[in-house]
């Protein structure tokens, strides 16, 4: 089966610019996650969707980050304006609904803010 798709794979922007990342989850997976992984650290959950509703966005910096999943399938994560500390890999994952279901990760988008 096809895995989680993400694009772009790499992005370089200057601080104060905006950027958007796209994710297409595995077909049939109602739950979608966005994680931020800073170099040398484990992934940190930014936001979790179930279908098109937000389940958890407690660690999303809402003054500059936004995410949507309008039709309950694809999702976009946006940063506006970007800061230097936003340099990281942004990972998208998806899973079936329910406790204990495996999260499948995409390859990530590596963002460099200069």
């Amino acid at each position, binding site marked *: 089966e096809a895995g989680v798709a993400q694009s772009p794979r790499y992005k370089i922007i200057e601080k104060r610019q905006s950027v958007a990342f796209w994710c297409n989850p595995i077909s049939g997976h109602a739950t979608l996650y966005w994680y931020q992984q800073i170099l040398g650290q484990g992934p940190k959950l930014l936001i979790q969707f179930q279908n098109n509703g937000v389940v*958890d966005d407690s660690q999303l910096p809402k003054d500059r980050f936004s995410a949507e999943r309008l039709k309950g399938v694809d999702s976009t994560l946006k940063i506006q304006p970007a800061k230097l500390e936003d340099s990281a890999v942004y990972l998208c994952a998806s*899973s079936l609904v329910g406790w*204990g*279901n495996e999260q499948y990760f995409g*390859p990530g988008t590596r963002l460099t803010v200069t």
Partner: protein
Amino acid sequence: GESVGLHLPTLSVQEGDNSIINCAYSNSASDYFIWYKQESGKGPQFIIDIRSNMDKRQGQRVTVLLNKTVKHLSLQIAATQPGDSAVYFCAENTSSNTGKLIFGQGTTLQVKP
């Protein structure tokens, strides 16, 4: 606050030896734990999981041990191979309602031929 940490940042082993990667967690209410493997340029890949009502679970060449008394998790890899070289993360489920995972910082496993 909640945290999951790993004891050693880097583990170097000889090919064919067994590897043991350790993890400490702080949330005694966590009920589900997962080990992930992450190779360079890729997303984390599920290895094995264990629920809090178990203390041991075995997979193919991997075993996870859970000690809830001391809040400790370990991953054992038998007959380590060069393809096992990667960063390994433990993660804990802190919410049975949402499935939210908290990841540790990771241990780099280096396999010497």
